[in-house]
Structure formats: C-alpha cells, structure tokens
C-alpha cells in the first residue's frame, strides 16, 4: 500500500514537473512571438501597415469597444449563431437518434449525408444568399448547415456504438421502449452527441463569420471585410481575434462538459 503510494507520488511529481516545463516553454514562445511582432515594425524591418502591432491592436480594440455600434455587431452575430446552432442541435440530435435506431433509414440517408459532409459547407453560401437574401436569415442557414451534419453523424454513431446487451438487459427487466430510449440510449450516446456538438460548433461559428464576410449589412464578419478593404490591419485584427477567442471559449466550454461526462460515466 505504502509502496504503490510512493510510486504514484513519484510519477505524479514527474508529470507535474513536465507540465510546468511545458507551460514555461509555451509561454516563452508566445511571448517571443508577441515581442517580435511588436518590435519588428519599430526597427523598420517590416511595415506596420501590413502587420500591425500588438499595441496598435489593443488601442484599436479600445477604440472599437468604446465607440457606438460595437454592441450591435456583436448582438447580430451572436443571434445568428445562437439561432442557427440551436436549430442544428434541435434537429441534428433527434434525427441522429432515429437514424441510429433504424438501419433502413440510415442506409437510405447515409450517402447524401456523407456527400454533404465531404463538401465544404461554405460553398453553399452563394445559393443560400440567392434563396434567403443578404440579411440574418442566410447566416442562420449557413450556421445551421455547418453545425447540423457533424451533430447528426456523431449522434448516429453514438447510438450504433451502444452495447446491445444493455438494451437487451433493460428489455428483460420489462423496460418499455420509452424507458430504453430515455434511460439507456440517450445517456449512453451522450458522449458522442457532445463530441458532435463540439465539432459542429466551430463550423457554425465559421459559417456565421464567413457568411457575414461574403454578403451582409452588419455583424463581426462584415467589419472584418470592411476594415480589410480599408487596409486598417489593427481594427481588422482586433475583430479577428475577438471571433477566435469566442470560438475557442465556446469549444473549450463544450470540451470541459465532455470530460465531466466521461469521468461521470466511470
């Protein structure tokens, strides 16, 4: 007992030392990158019009946040994302569950779904704009299309990967179809569903932003394109970084939830 504990502790110490080393080197690398980015234009080696600088991006960010209209862009983009991605979950999960349960339907619908999955979903932008116009509807649709396919495919895979004996066992204890669904299938496939949601999330964010960059009247992507065409790299980079931070934060939140699920399962 004591021995295993000391072995465990040694391993633990080694791991935490490695973790500390990793954090140190990663931080140093990022700091070096930021320093070069800040100093290179000052020495005149590169033109700040093309690369901007961290200090300029921060100044631009302050400018943008304190001026009016910023909240409007954020709320337009957020609303497009929330509606499109919410619809993707609301439709992708139930359809995926059904396809996982019924092989006939699955075999029937699998080829078209795979064809859409293999196609870059942003290629659908022009036709969606023709159908729905340049307002919010077209971005909602692109976010939906981007998000729904990974959710659907992973939900289906999750249901199919379930241990058959669990269902048989539940049935032999007189569980109704509804009980089997709610108490076995749904919780059992939850890890795959959240994986699908995580994969779909970044595609939905991309859909909203690129949709706004392509044709729009407002939103973060709209501003990215506008400042790009005005050569204002500092403003442009602030918006790009803001979008990236949102995407990373949302993905990380789902990942944390996912890890909780896995540990809860054990």
């Amino acid at each position: 007992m004591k021995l295993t504990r000391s072995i465990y502790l040694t391993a633990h110490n080694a791991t935490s030392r490695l973790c500390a080393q990793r954090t140190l080197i990663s931080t140093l690398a990022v700091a070096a990158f930021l320093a070069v980015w800040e100093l290179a234009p000052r020495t005149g080696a590169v033109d700040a019009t093309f690369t901007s600088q961290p200090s300029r991006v921060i100044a631009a960010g302050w400018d943008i946040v304190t001026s009016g209209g910023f909240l409007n862009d954020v709320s337009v983009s957020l609303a497009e994302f929330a509606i499109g991605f919410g619809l993707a979950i609301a439709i992708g999960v139930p359809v995926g569950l059904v396809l996982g349960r019924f092989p006939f339907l699955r075999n029937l619908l699998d080829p078209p779904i795979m064809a859409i999955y293999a196609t870059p979903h942003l290629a659908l932008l022009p036709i969606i704009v023709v159908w729905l116009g340049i307002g919010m509807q077209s971005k909602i649709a692109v976010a939906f299309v981007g998000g729904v396919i990974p959710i659907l495919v992973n939900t289906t895979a999750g249901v199919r990967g379930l241990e058959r004996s669990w269902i048989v066992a539940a049935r032999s204890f007189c569980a109704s179809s509804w009980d089997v669904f709610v108490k076995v299938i749904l919780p059992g496939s939850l890890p795959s569903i959240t994986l699908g949601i995580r994969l779909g999330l970044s595609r939905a964010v991309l859909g909203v932003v690129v949709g706004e960059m392509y044709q729009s009247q407002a939103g973060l992507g709209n501003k990215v394109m506008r400042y790009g065409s005005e050569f204002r790299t500092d403003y442009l980079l602030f918006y790009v970084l803001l979008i990236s931070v949102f995407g990373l934060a949302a993905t990380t939140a789902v990942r944390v939830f996912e890890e909780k699920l896995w540990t809860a399962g054990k």
Partner: protein
Amino acid sequence: MDGWKMKPVVLGIASFAVMLLAWESAVRLGWVNPFFVSQPSAVAATLSRTAKSGELEHNLAVSFGEFAVGYGLSIVVGILAGALAARFRTIEYALDPFLWFLYSAPLIAFYPIFVIWFGLGVPTVIALAFLLSFPQIAASTLNGFQNVNPGLIRAARAFGATERDLLWKVALPASVPMVISGLRLGIGRALMGVVVGELFGATAGLGYSISYYGGLLKTTDLIASLAVIVVLGVLSTQGLSALEARFDSWRVND
C-alpha cells in the same frame, strides 16, 4: 455476407435517384420555381455545355492548381513540423500554442489580411488552403509519432538501431496510418480554403464560378459548379479513406 454489403450501396444509389427524380418532377409539375432551385436536367445540360466549351476544364484546372500547391505545401511543412515536434520536446511545447490556435480559430477570418499581404487572387487562395490544412496534418503526425509503441523503439535500440534507423524503420511506418488520416482530414480543409478563397476574390475556379453565377442569379450554372465541388469532395475523401485502409492493413490487432 456479400448480399448484406450490397444492400447499403443499392439503397444509397436509390436514395440519390429518388431525390433527383423528386427534384425534377417538383419543378415540372410547377410546385417549385426553377428560378430558385433549377432542375437536374438543366444542370446536366449546363455541365455538358461547359465541358464542351472548355469553361469547366479551365475552372477545374485553376482550382486544382491552387489546391495542389496549397495542400502539397501543407503536407511537406505539416509532416516536417509534426516529426520535429515529436522528436524534440522543446519544439513541441513551443509550437503547441500556435498549432492549437491555428487549428481551432476561424482562420478564414484572416482572409482580408492575406489579401493585403499577397494581393487578390491565386497566392491568397493558396495561402488559405495551406493554412487551413497544415495544422491538421502537423497535429496528426505528432500524434502518430508519439503513439508509436515504446516497446518497438526499445527493441530496435537494443538491436543497435541508430537515430536514423529509428525514424525510417520504426517511427515512420508505425505512424503512417495516423499521418494518412491527417492527410484525409486536411484535404477537406484545403478544399474549403480553395473554395472560400475563390468565393471572395478570384478570376477563375469553381468557387469563383459559384459566386459569379450567384451574383447573376443564374442558379442552374451555380448548382452545376456546386455539383462538381460535391463530387470532388466525395472522391478525394473516399480516395484517402481507401489509402488509409490499405496502409493500415499490415497492422495486426492484438
């Protein structure tokens, strides 16, 4: 056994056929307006017309050229970076935050800055394709190298393998399946880069033509180009999946 394997294929083809038939007849019966959705027969006619006039060939050649350069670069740089990171821990730790950022940030939002750097057109499209697929390939390569069975490495070392032998005879073959799965995932991302890059600013290519015809509201021509992109996406992904299965076939499950 064969009968069971055939069934999904038959059903799949049937579902495509039914969809095309439903689309065509919905238009013919006047239920939907062909201005918005076009119809399969018109799309087929457009495809054969553009194939004859050389327009399709030209667009394909431009898009494929951009794809080949961008994706090719990302294979070389991605595998190199992944292998170096796997071999040297410092490089792995230093690259990690950048790879992670490139992998998960919506990179296409950087498009305007590429235009400022490289100008509108082919170089920007190539840069986008490269930047989208490179982190995927690097991450998979790193993963593959790191998951090589340490017993194999110890055994090779015990028999006097040099660093070079380890790379060529142990690490590389053992990590090939992971690398190829990275290449497969990278294809989709590179294709996305090409199409979106062309959507925004190009003078030729498949993405350009869907955007161009979209602007003119010529849905038939738009859908024809879209169909070509769908077919390319499916073919390339299927091709790499087949390659993956082939390279993985030597592995014995224990």
